[in-house]
């Protein structure tokens, strides 16, 4: 089905761009399987940032001198690049601190819109409903709790099954006439579940609800076309896609961006300011109060170039194969419970597990002692873990630089966990 992938020699060349992959951990070569938390940074991205910082540091959209003009051009070209990367127009893409900030920005802007006098696109009050799922990252749950509390609306949750999976039918059952906002993750950061976007968007559209896509775990890994997905808003983070930290991306469909008031105000986002009030610029500037992370935005643009050069389809195919290898391997190990889609079903290139009788922290420690960096904990998804009946899971996640050998080291190390802790003998 997916033919084109990353060839072995291409993989070697890619890995050479990531110096951190050569680090030693506890006397072993690092096997970095924690991209789901944050991705490593390739040298070309760091070079782009450094060159910019050393030759183009200047205020953008504020100065008239030559360096300021050159910096502004580079900054706006970066915006165009990043917008194109996810199938959006440049004026639909604003920068935030991180994806969490972007999701909060949507919630806070919607709350502010209720207070007027701005054009009110979405009515939110008692009786109105905001829908999200039980599997969400806290970043895509708490802002909606806050929005509900601020407006009197109700937060309704799409439930998951015993594996942490929800379906289009579950979503349709939760969305009704009073639904105003539907927010969900494109790819689950714990489960690896790929959401039925088209079905959810159709159900939301049918009742006139806005759709908000948490694209944190999709934008880095699969070719994204936000216009084709037809969502109203989306959020993702630079640091999960080879870019620097400190940059989140807020996508707002043009009409929504024009209708929403800003959540934060200050310099660079206004046209006229008096002592009494201010008029805001149109998007994207409206949502970018204050000096932005210009060097980092340029770095993110370089990251999207890097990803495009490898090819998103090849990356997706590579990770798909690694994801299957992960779950297939895990399925052969005794006393392991795989969270999310089960072996044979579609999933992203990550897997979270419960090791019967051993706490995830202890699992992580044993992996770490063998140089395998995986993530243990609740992965910012406590409600999901509560539903699964566990405090924490262990997650391995892959990216374009991950090898089969690294996946195998994870599987090997997991195989030894229960014996080490004297469980299940």
């Amino acid at each position, binding site marked *: 089905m997916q033919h084109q992938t990353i060839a072995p020699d291409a993989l070697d060349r890619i890995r050479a761009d990531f110096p951190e992959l050569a680090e030693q951990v506890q006397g072993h070569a690092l096997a970095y399987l924690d991209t789901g938390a944050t991705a490593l940074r390739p040298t070309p991205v760091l070079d782009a940032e450094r060159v910019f910082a050393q030759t183009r540091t200047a205020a953008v959209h504020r*100065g008239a001198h030559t360096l300021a*003009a050159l910096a502004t051009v580079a900054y706006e070209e970066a915006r165009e690049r990043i917008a194109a990367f996810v199938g959006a127009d440049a004026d639909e893409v604003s920068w935030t601190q991180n994806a969490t900030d972007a999701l909060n920005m949507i919630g806070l802007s919607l709350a502010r819109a209720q207070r007027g006098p701005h054009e009110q696109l979405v009515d939110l009050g008692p009786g109105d409903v905001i829908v999200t799922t039980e599997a969400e990252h806290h970043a895509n749950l708490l802002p909606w709790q806050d929005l509900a509390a601020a407006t009197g609306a109700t937060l309704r949750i799409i439930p998951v099954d015993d594996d942490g999976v929800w379906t289009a039918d579950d979503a349709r059952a939760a969305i009704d006439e009073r639904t105003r906002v539907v927010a969900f993750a494109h790819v689950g950061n714990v489960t690896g579940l790929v959401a039925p976007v088209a079905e959810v968007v159709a159900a939301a559209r049918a009742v006139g609800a806005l759709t908000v896509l948490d694209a944190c775990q999709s934008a880095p890994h699969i070719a994204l076309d936000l216009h084709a997905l037809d969502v109203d808003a989306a959020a993702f983070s630079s640091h999960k896609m080879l870019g620097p930290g400190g940059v989140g991306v807020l996508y707002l469909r043009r009409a929504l961006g024009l209708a929403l008031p800003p959540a934060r105000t200050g310099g660079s986002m*206004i046209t006229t300011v008096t002592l009494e009030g201010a008029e805001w610029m149109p998007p994207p500037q409206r949502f970018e109060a204050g000096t932005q992370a210009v060097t980092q935005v340029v770095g993110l643009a370089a990251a999207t170039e890097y990803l495009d050069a490898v090819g998103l389809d090849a990356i997706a195919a590579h990770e798909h194969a690694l994801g299957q290898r992960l779950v297939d391997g895990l399925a052969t190990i005794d006393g392991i419970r795989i969270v999310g889609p089960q072996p044979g079903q579609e999933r992203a290139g990550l897997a979270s597990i419960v090791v019967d009788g051993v706490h995830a922290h202890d699992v992580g420690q044993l992996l770490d002692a063998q140089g395998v960096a995986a993530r243990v904990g609740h992965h910012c998804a406590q409600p999901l873990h509560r539903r699964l009946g566990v405090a924490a899971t262990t997650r391995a996640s892959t990216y374009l630089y991950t090898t089969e050998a690294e996946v195998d080291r994870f599987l090997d190390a997991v195989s030894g966990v229960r014996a080490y802790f004297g469980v299940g003998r």
Partner: protein
Amino acid sequence: MSGLDELYQQIILDHAKARHGEGALSADAAHAERFERNPTCGDEIRLRIAIDGAHVDAVGWEGQGCSISQASASIVGQDVPGLTREDAQLRVDAMRRMLRTRGEHDDADLDLLGDASAFEGVAKFPMRVKCAMLPWVALEDTLRQVTARD
């Protein structure tokens, strides 16, 4: 001619002082009016037109800003009255080609633009393009308003 002198050609400095059309049309006498502002530098203009059938009868403006935007307004005030609405729009288009598309304009555009062709050097100063375009963007909007009402 240095880059700077290309930007600030004498004809531009002269227009910046001449301010043709400033205050030339009252709100009552105008058929359309538009306020435009360049948020980066604060240049602003309120431009009005009066229409006589297919023709622009009169143009007036009030505003403040740098010499580029003021000279540009003066040229609009001097050259646009008497043009057909269509010709006025053609000049807006030619200005945009000259300033925004880096060399895609041709000699015909320069001929058409008359005094406004003196802004050719502005294309090299991207931060000033908005200044030069400001009155033309306002003009375009007033033309659109009257067309919408036709």
